[in-house]
């Protein structure tokens, strides 16, 4: 149950932003295609939090509630933006069924260590995440990028734990497929991805 201290923190713009701003921003930015959209998402979420904090009666750690509000604001703005159509669900790798090991690529497995992370790979991965259907995209962003534990992420997406894992699995397999395509194109073009130092 939320304590008065938690609620006081949420009600004060200073402590609200100091304590939760960074995480709100990170999620907003991952969910948005532009810096400007991320700021709008953050601002809308913060306003909603401020306005509803007085009646907050949830967990002592309000992060789940804050994430949920931020997600909803991000979805709202996302809906308004023109976006490349997501890949069809039918084209996502299958879930844990049959004997299907979705992608039979073993010969070029495990490439990341061959490359310093390049701007190009970074962009490709972001594009691949962006083309996922919304619920799959959100699963990757919440768990794999923001480190939200399985059960909490499942709650945020209104999924069972099993449903969430299946979704994450399919999303990761899609990303893997795109990565393999990328590694192949690198191999075919002579074998080096443009690195940007580090």
């Amino acid at each position, binding site marked *: 149950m939320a304590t008065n201290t938690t609620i006081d923190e949420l009600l004060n713009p200073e402590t609200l932003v100091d304590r939760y701003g960074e995480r709100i921003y*990170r999620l907003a930015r991952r969910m948005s295609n532009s810096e400007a959209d991320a700021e709008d998402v953050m601002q809308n979420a913060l306003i909603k939090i401020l306005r*509803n904090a007085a*009646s907050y009666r949830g967990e002592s750690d309000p992060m789940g509630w804050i994430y949920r509000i931020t997600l909803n604001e991000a979805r709202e703005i996302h809906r308004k933006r023109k976006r490349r159509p997501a890949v069809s669900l039918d084209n996502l790798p299958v879930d844990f069924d049959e004997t299907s090991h979705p992608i039979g690529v*073993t010969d070029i497995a495990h490439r*990341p260590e061959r490359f310093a*992370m390049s701007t190009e790979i970074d962009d490709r991965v972001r594009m691949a995440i962006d083309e996922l259907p919304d619920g799959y995209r959100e699963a990757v962003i919440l768990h794999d990028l923001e480190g939200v534990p399985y059960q909490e992420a499942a709650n945020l997406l209104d999924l069972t734990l099993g449903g969430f894992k299946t979704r994450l699995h399919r999303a990761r397999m899609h*990303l893997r497929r795109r990565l393999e395509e990328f590694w192949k194109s690198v191999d075919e073009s002579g074998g080096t991805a443009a690195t940007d130092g580090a």
Partner: protein
Amino acid sequence: MDMCCKDLAEKLLLFRDGDLPEEEVQHLREHLHYCPPCLDLLNGYDEVVEVLCRLKPVKMPANLCESMKERLKTECGGTPDARQPEAASDGNGSEA
């Protein structure tokens, strides 16, 4: 031991994240030894998770913190406590 690959696929998620109980880890390692497709699946997870970890971190622009506070003060004015809460549609859990 005869773990079917379907069950294993789900365990790979936990294994990759270090959340699989020790006794199951042993079973899984044995299975991976003679099941190339499962090994391939695990390599896929490794690859994707590793690449995701290496994505450039998101950093909040330096001045955004302060400007956000100012915007909030302007937008929400004086004492937010006195405001009527909006219709709770965000899972606030305060409906009771």
